């Protein structure tokens, strides 16, 4: 079975190569080829999953060695794969959700003349993402990491004729680059510390390494995770990334790629467990981002940007859980999977709404759509209930566990983190209810003469239905007998946290804040009509509409700061460096001009110089003798 692992990556890679090199001949069938390869990869994934289930819990790690990639002296990098419970979970999520979104895109991108290319990029993304989660060393993981960055760039800027899309793609690429630098530094540190960067030896050797080095590696890994997973302070690209086609937002910027940071931290769990300072940084980033994203999500009128804020916030939950150590890893991944279902479903629902509304994204121009798009309404509604943590649905199980684990961190820290997570849950309930009410309820705020809302074709609704089913049942299924935790335990290890408050209390508190959030949203957007143009709003609302001034901050600090820095450097270059070089040249010239005068051509002056020289020599000899 080991030999199938490479096929997982190879299938979408072949698809991408075919579609991107095949030219116009494949224009008519490109979408089918692309979907076929995605589904094939999913089928291989399922076969491997069945194989793993047939083995004992300790025997579920498969390795496949392909070839020795680079070998120079003591430096050795292999192209080799490792499939264990953690990567298996990701493989199923990536290929499963990926296949559904491929199928959905057949309908969504039907009228786009570059559809073949779109499917090529989607396949490329799948291949890179699978490489990322299947690599058995950090260097190969880095290849996948860069690959998904490239695919993300290509897909955000897919409608490159729009300047906003082209700019957004560039922005995403540049911000990701900062994170990637963190990952490359982490890999270099690993090599100098451990002499290798394969998962096995590195993670096994954390016990014998100084905590300072591990903290440095951990912080660099966190920087990488911040870039890829849009966490504060590298969060600014995700909102703009919504310029890409909606299936891309669903697959890459909600369900899979942005969770790569969580994968990285969970995979490197042994490093973080041994570096408590780095863990504190991780939970701080997670807690700040979960509130940041939630607040941004409350103020956005663009349905996709509201969902993007939500994504940021939910990934904040995962990062927070991953930072809690063994009490949180399994829940981070569990929330990641359930989030993959409901957030992909929500994005596909948003895409379906846009499809029926002439690509309108402003929720203030929606309203009352539930009767026009019943399937979209029901699937979106189920996703909505799942994300706010309605009892019995996926989000309830996974988020509740994270809040509980946050309290179990212990001490003041536990109370702060738990409080932030609870507050985040309340805001989540508020902004998701707002999205729901503004889109599907209330009076119609669109022009019936130009807009004719209609349900999307079956090829789009069926993936939405499948994801909605996942959003409803996945969480419950994972939680029965702690199936999911037991499945992951051999890789991530697991401890029960000792929470100062009982699980029932946490659940009750979650329910209370849930009701508060929903009630507040209903009072603001359900009971009163929603104005079609945005009111001015409070200072916080206006700041949140501008993504809490993230771009202004970046502009003032980074762009202006960078400009000042370069100007200073140019000035220093001109005055100091050039000054030193030119000064040396000028002084040499002046000195030579003077020295040249010694060679006058008058023999007698040479004779005087010789005499003087001889006198000096004699005097020196005598002096030396005297001494």
């Amino acid at each position, binding site marked *: 079975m080991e030999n199938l692992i490479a096929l997982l990556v190879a299938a979408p890679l072949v698809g991408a190569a075919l579609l991107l090199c095949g030219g116009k001949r494949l224009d008519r069938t490109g979408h089918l080829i692309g979907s076929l390869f995605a589904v094939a990869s999913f089928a291989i994934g399922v076969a491997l999953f069945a194989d793993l289930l047939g083995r004992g819990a300790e025997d579920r790690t498969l390795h496949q060695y392909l070839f020795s990639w680079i070998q120079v002296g003591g430096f050795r990098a292999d192209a080799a794969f490792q499939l264990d419970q953690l990567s298996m979970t990701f493989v199923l999520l990536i290929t499963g959700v990926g296949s559904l979104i491929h199928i959905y895109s057949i309908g969504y991108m039907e009228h786009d003349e570059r559809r073949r290319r779109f499917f090529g990029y989607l396949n490329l993304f799948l291949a890179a993402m699978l490489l990322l989660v299947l690599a058995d060393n950090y260097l190969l993981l880095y290849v996948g990491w860069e690959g998904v960055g490239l695919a993300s760039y290509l897909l955000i800027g897919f409608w490159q004729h729009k300047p906003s899309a082209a700019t957004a793609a560039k922005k995403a690429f540049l911000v990701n680059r900062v994170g990637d630098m963190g990952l490359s530094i982490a890999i270099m540190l690993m090599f100098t510390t451990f002499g290798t960067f394969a998962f096995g030896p590195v993670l096994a050797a954390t016990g014998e390494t100084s905590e300072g080095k591990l903290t440095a590696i951990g912080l660099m890994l966190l920087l990488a995770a911040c870039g890829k997973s849009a966490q504060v302070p590298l969060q600014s690209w995700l909102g703009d990334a919504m310029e890409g086609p909606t299936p891309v937002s669903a697959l890459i910027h909600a369900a899979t790629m942005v969770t790569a940071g969580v994968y990285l931290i969970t995979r490197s769990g042994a490093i973080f467990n041994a570096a408590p300072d780095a863990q504190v940084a991780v939970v701080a980033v997670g807690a700040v981002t979960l509130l940041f994203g939630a607040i941004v999500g409350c103020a956005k009128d663009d349905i996709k940007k509201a969902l993007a804020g939500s994504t940021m916030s939910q990934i904040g939950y995962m990062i927070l859980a991953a930072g809690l150590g063994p009490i949180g890893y399994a829940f981070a991944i569990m929330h990641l999977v359930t989030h993959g279902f409901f957030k992909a479903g929500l994005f596909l629902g948003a895409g379906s709404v846009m499809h029926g509304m002439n690509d309108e994204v402003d929720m203030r121009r929606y309203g009352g759509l539930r009767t026009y798009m019943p399937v979209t309404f029901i699937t979106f509604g189920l996703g909505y209930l799942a994300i706010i943590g309605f009892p019995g649905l996926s989000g309830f199980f996974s988020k509740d566990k994270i809040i509980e684990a946050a309290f179990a961190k212990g001490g003041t820290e536990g109370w702060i983190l738990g409080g932030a997570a609870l507050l985040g849950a309340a805001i989540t309930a508020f902004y998701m209810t707002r999205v729901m009410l503004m889109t599907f309820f209330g009076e119609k705020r669109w022009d019936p003469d130009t807009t004719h809302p209609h349900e999307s074709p079956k090829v789009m609704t069926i993936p939405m239905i499948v994801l909605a089913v996942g959003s409803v049942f996945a969480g419950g299924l994972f939680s029965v007998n702690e199936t999911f935790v037991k499945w992951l335990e051999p890789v991530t290890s697991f401890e029960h946290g000792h929470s100062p408050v009982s699980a029932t209390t946490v659940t009750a508190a979650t329910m209370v804040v849930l009701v508060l959030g929903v009630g507040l949203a209903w009072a603001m957007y359900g009971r009163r009509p929603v104005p079609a143009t945005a009111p001015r709003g409070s200072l916080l609302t206006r700041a949140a509409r501008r993504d809490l001034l993230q771009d202004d901050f970046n502009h003032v600090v980074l762009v202006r700061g960078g400009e000042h820095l370069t100007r200073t450097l140019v000035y220093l270059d001109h005055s100091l460096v050039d000054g030193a070089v030119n000064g040396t040249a000028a002084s040499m010239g002046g000195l030579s001009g003077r020295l040249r005068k010694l060679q*006058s*051509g*008058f*023999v*007698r002056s040479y*004779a*005087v110089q010789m*005499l003087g020289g001889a006198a000096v020599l004699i005097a020196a000899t005598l002096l030396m003798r005297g001494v």
Partner: protein
Amino acid sequence: MNPVYYLYLAALLFTIGGAGVLIRRNAIVVFMCIELMLNACNLAFVTFSRMHGNLDGQIIAFFTMVVAAAEVVVGLAIIVSIFRTRHTASVDDASLMKL
């Protein structure tokens, strides 16, 4: 007779020669002054040879004579050549490589 007097004479001759080289402009005179300095040295060598009772100084004096003879041949040839082209034997006038 005290050999040191010869050394005084050698020093006097050397000084006269040196002053001539530095002061006179005529190439022939400068040349003769150089010969004077060489011979003052020879005198000193021979005197030292006598004082120390070995022959090293005398041998060096012979060497100096040979070198001086060779030098005279080359030097006079150069002087004659310069005189032919510049119609003067002044060393100050020949301060440039070109005419």
